[in-house]
């Protein structure tokens, strides 16, 4: 029981960080950004190769974060400057990143089992008593996600954050405020993909290796988490949307784990995901009444 709970929490928290990124693009920017399927493994690839070359694991988190931001900026530039539709910009970036990730890591699968990571290093070996070690990963993840969530909450209350929220809500208003809506979108995509790559970096360190196929379906997990979270907690206004999204990610992982423990085969996972996704969408039956562009 405890093992299963810890497993769900670990996976849920890592994907929760990723879901925060998807929350920015999908909910705030109203931009279905598929590039996350590439930026999640991008974080993993960057981390694996850096750790192999002896870079401090904590530093790899920072570098992955910025690598993700760069990828987000490129998606944004494709959309804003080259005037490619949002969905297509993401698909283009996701496809390109597959090859880029292979280039970065040098191969499709890179192990870092024997290297130090943020979860396993000499500091923890000395500091952490044995009885606590099973909870170390969850505690660290919790610590990281709380910081990320708080930073995001704070950011959304700044002037820049206000503008970000405005651009997804009503592009015309951003123009009226004498700001370039394109720049704001690019900024939003950068932050979102930075968070996703950070999650990818943490995931690689947690599992001890990078694998190219890991990114497949990231966007689905992200969207499912965002939709589950924001819909379940819609009525509880004291829950911040960011908190709801993280809980959504944990619930999503719980559902998947439940499905498998019921005897469903892992090969049916995608079908379960799709069904779950659909059910949530129907239940919430959310219709957006947003002003689109210069309607």
């Amino acid at each position, binding site marked *: 029981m405890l093992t*299963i709970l810890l*497993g769900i929490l670990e996976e849920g928290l890592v994907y929760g960080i990723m879901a925060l990124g998807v929350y920015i693009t999908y909910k705030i920017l109203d931009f279905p950004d598929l590039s996350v399927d590439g930026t999640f493994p991008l974080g993993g690839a960057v981390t694996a190769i850096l750790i192999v070359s002896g870079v401090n694991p904590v530093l790899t988190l920072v570098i992955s974060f910025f690598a993700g931001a760069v990828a987000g900026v490129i998606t944004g530039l494709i959309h804003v400057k080259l005037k490619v539709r949002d969905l297509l910009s993401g698909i283009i970036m996701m496809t390109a990143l597959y090859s880029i990730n292979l280039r970065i890591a040098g191969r499709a699968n890179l192990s870092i089992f024997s290297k130090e990571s943020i979860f396993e290093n000499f500091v923890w070996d000395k500091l952490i008593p044995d009885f606590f070690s099973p909870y170390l990963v969850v505690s660290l993840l919790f610590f990281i996600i709380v910081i990320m969530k708080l930073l995001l909450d704070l950011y959304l209350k700044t002037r820049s954050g206000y503008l970000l929220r405005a651009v997804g809500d009503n592009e015309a208003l951003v123009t009226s405020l004498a700001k370039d809506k394109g720049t704001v979108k690019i900024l939003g995509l950068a932050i979102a993909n930075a968070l996703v790559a950070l999650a990818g970096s943490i995931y690689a360190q947690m599992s001890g290796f990078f694998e190219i196929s890991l990114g497949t379906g990231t966007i689905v997990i992200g969207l499912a988490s965002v939709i589950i979270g924001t819909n379940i907690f819609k009525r509880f206004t004291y829950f911040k949307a960011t908190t709801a999204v993280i809980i959504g990610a944990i619930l999503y992982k719980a559902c998947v784990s439940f499905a498998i423990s019921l005897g469903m085969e892992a090969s049916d996972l995608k079908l379960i995901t799709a069904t779950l996704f659909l059910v949530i969408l129907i239940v919430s039956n959310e219709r957006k009444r947003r002003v689109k562009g210069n309607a």
Partner: protein
Amino acid sequence: MKKLIMSALILTMAAGLLAGCANSKKEGQVTIGIGQFAEHGSLDNCREGFLAGLAEGGYVEGENLKVLFENAQADGGTAAQIADNFMAKKVDLIAAIATPMAQSAYSAAKKKDVPVIFTAVTDPVMAELAKEDKTPNGNITGTSDKLPVEKQLEMIRKVLPEAKTIGIMYSTSEVNSVSAIEEYKAVAPNYGFEIIESGISTAADIPLAADNLLEKVDCLNNLTDNTVVSSLPVILDKAQEKNIPVFGSEVEQVKLGCLATVGLDYFDLGVQTGKMAAQVLRGEKKASEINFEVIEEASFYGNNAVADQLGITLPEELVNSAKEMFDEISE
């Protein structure tokens, strides 16, 4: 209505959290989880061999052995989920077939010190599952399926004395293939061959890549590349049109219509792995105390029907040494 569905959903999720509690376990029975990364002939044979090896070692499925089996269908995320699930179900040992599955299993199992036995991992050292001296990198050991590259090239030279170029198709996203191609390129000149490689990224690329490659080569040779092997019929069709022979990398491919191979017997590989697992289950040795083993004993397999089609006579010395010859092409 909405509320009803929503509460049902939440209940389901809560039940999911509790489901791990239920753990029916018979006295004296051990439970193992077998995780297989992808679905294709050699890996399937591996699994069957593994169960046979366990039986030889005294663990018979259904009697004193409960087997949980999951296939990740070549998805890294699913592999991790499978490993976590095995852990949640408190298996006594995880058997992992193919590299990414082994890594996921190791990653999930190391916290709880559950032993992992891998098989069909081409390079356990590179995957950091073992050290250079073959000693395990933790509570994990198993068998490696290194391709017998030199023997294969030697065989191709005997079958096609005039051939100069060998085409190899592989997916750039599979580590095993990438390292195998390197080895082929390094060794091929010793046998008077030039290797022409063609990297693909998805199965959808295969038809075009095959057309392209077939223009330039005297024969094709397969690796144990999951993507390419899954699309083997497409490649065989195209090669047949041009009357170009295709060599396989293991017996299942020869059954499907490859001319010949000097390949590993994945069933045997599985058996050997199963015996190692039995040793660990009996408590004689810990997985961390057993070095991983490499199987390099390869034998010749040929397909007479394919040879007839191509108008090639397989050299007698090879046919005589064959472990098995096939007279038909299985669909």
